[in-house]
């Protein structure tokens, strides 16, 4: 499979602030690659470097085998973070405007249909809902029919319904073969959409890999949370290990088949509890565990595979 993006050892500092340090990533064509991290982790600066609007202090970047500033602009689509187009233009006018900037753009009606904005195409941008506005922004990024689409925190600040509709849009783009480079601070978003995720913390790449593989390796097992006033020492009738939490106890590595047995043991012992919650590990658990490791040791864990690539 061809490589869409290759960044090797790139670093960027602004005076005393490290935006990102010694980051290496590789994104395959047709892949949905998500860069995950909290606000200030360096995601947006990294997108700027990959799209050629800022130059890294060191390291090399190639996009479709060329320097980001030399790539044909028609091959790349970008939705910048907190992007706001001219607000007193309609969705149709906005697409017409950005269409006019490209040599071989898509038809406005086709793009409006793709993002489900045909019914509100004559409404000024400023009068659209948050979800509709983000759809228009994605449409703007799609007007040149890009092979590689950068979406920098596309769902920040929109309601759950708007987020879901944008997820479905990104899914459709990926299914159609568009390479998507998605940044987000919503772990569930990356877990739902990405083929591979890169976890970024304070400018350092902590880990790269498929979400399922990362969860398997670093997320820990499933567990049962019991919200109770009793301490682990008081739960003597259980045949499983019990750990204390702020709200009760945590029973690690509980399969769904074991839940009934544990509940029976709790009842037999007369344990009263407010809630029982069975939880699968998520990417958030992975992120918290790995960033905690980095913060304590100063170095990230060994990657899953060479360059963090999935095979």
């Amino acid at each position, binding site marked *: 499979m061809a490589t869409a993006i290759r960044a090797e050892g790139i670093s960027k500092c602004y005076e005393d602030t490290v935006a990102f340090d010694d980051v290496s990533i590789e994104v395959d064509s047709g892949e949905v690659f998500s860069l995950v991290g909290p606000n200030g982790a360096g995601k947006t600066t990294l997108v700027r470097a990959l799209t050629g609007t800022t130059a890294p202090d060191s390291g090399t970047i190639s996009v479709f085998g060329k320097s980001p500033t030399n790539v044909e602009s028609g091959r790349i689509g970008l939705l910048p973070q907190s*992007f*706001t187009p001219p607000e007193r233009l309609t969705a149709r006018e906005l697409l017409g405007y950005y269409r*006019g900037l490209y040599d071989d753009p898509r038809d406005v009606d086709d793009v409006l249909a793709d993002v489900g904005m045909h019914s509100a195409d004559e409404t000024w941008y400023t009068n659209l809902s948050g979800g509709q506005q983000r759809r228009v922004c994605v449409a703007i990024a799609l007007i040149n029919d890009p092979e590689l689409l950068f979406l920098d925190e596309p769902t920040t600040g929109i309601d759950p319904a708007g987020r879901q509709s944008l997820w479905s849009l990104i899914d459709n783009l990926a299914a159609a073969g568009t390479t998507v480079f998605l940044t987000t601070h919503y772990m569930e978003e990356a877990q739902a959409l990405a083929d591979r995720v890169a976890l970024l913390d304070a400018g350092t790449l902590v880990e790269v890999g498929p979400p399922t593989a990362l969860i398997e390796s670093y997320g820990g097992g499933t567990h049962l949370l019991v919200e109770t006033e009793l301490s682990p020492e008081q739960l003597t009738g259980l045949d499983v290990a019990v750990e204390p939490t702020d709200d009760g106890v945590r029973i690690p590595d509980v399969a769904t088949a074991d839940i009934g047995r544990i509940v029976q043991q709790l009842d037999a012992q007369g344990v009263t509890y407010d809630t029982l919650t069975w939880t699968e590990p998520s990417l958030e658990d992975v992120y918290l565990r790995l960033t905690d490791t980095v913060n304590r040791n100063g170095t990230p864990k060994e990657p899953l595979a060479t360059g963090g690539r999935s095979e």
Partner: protein
Amino acid sequence: MTRTRRVAAEASAAWRTFLRRRTAVFFTFGFPLILVGIFGVVVQANPTSSGLFSHPTSFYVPGYLAVIVLFTPLTRIGSSIARHREGNRFQKLSTTPASRGEWLAAHTLVNIGIILLASAVVLGVLELLAGGAIRLSLSLLPFIILAVVVFCGLGAILGRITDSQDGVVAASNAVALPLVFLSETFVMPERLPAWFRPAINLSPLTYFARGVRKATYLDQPVWPDLLVLTMFAVLVFAAGASAVPQE
């Protein structure tokens, strides 16, 4: 051809956006009329006195037009840059084929259209006030266009060095107010300190004012001033284009 298409797309969007900002439209055309009202009616030109306004109304046409070609492009381009930057539009534009020069050219074209309209309105009002005494000349057109180019370029530079719309307005006023009074518009050099007079020649607005006065009042050849203003336009536009932010 594609460059023309890009400039047209940018200009069309900017023009529509301008027309839909009612307060911007009102004040763009209302501000120069207020100025004419203040200077032309309240103060009243009095050719018999020896005061500041001792010449006929026609003599001050360069001053009225200077206010329009100076303030509007400076603040409009500077504010546009601030708005674009706040909305991360330049970051988006930098990934399109559009260049910074094309962006500035498009917005300059829109400003030329706006300023030509505003100038026509002001000249019409002045003609009424002066009883048809103002000599209208086609050579006003290149002067107005070139001056708008100069101050759009300067507006881009101000937009780059300031970090907000408020900052742009403050910086525009700080630049424009001294310029408008020290460029042979309303105040003639003989009323300024002798040591300051050479500085007048550094202002592009001086050549605008001289040229327009020659065209509308003195009936003298305008090409020397046109030539200097053209040079200013080329230099300041180039500097302005390179000042348009990339992100």
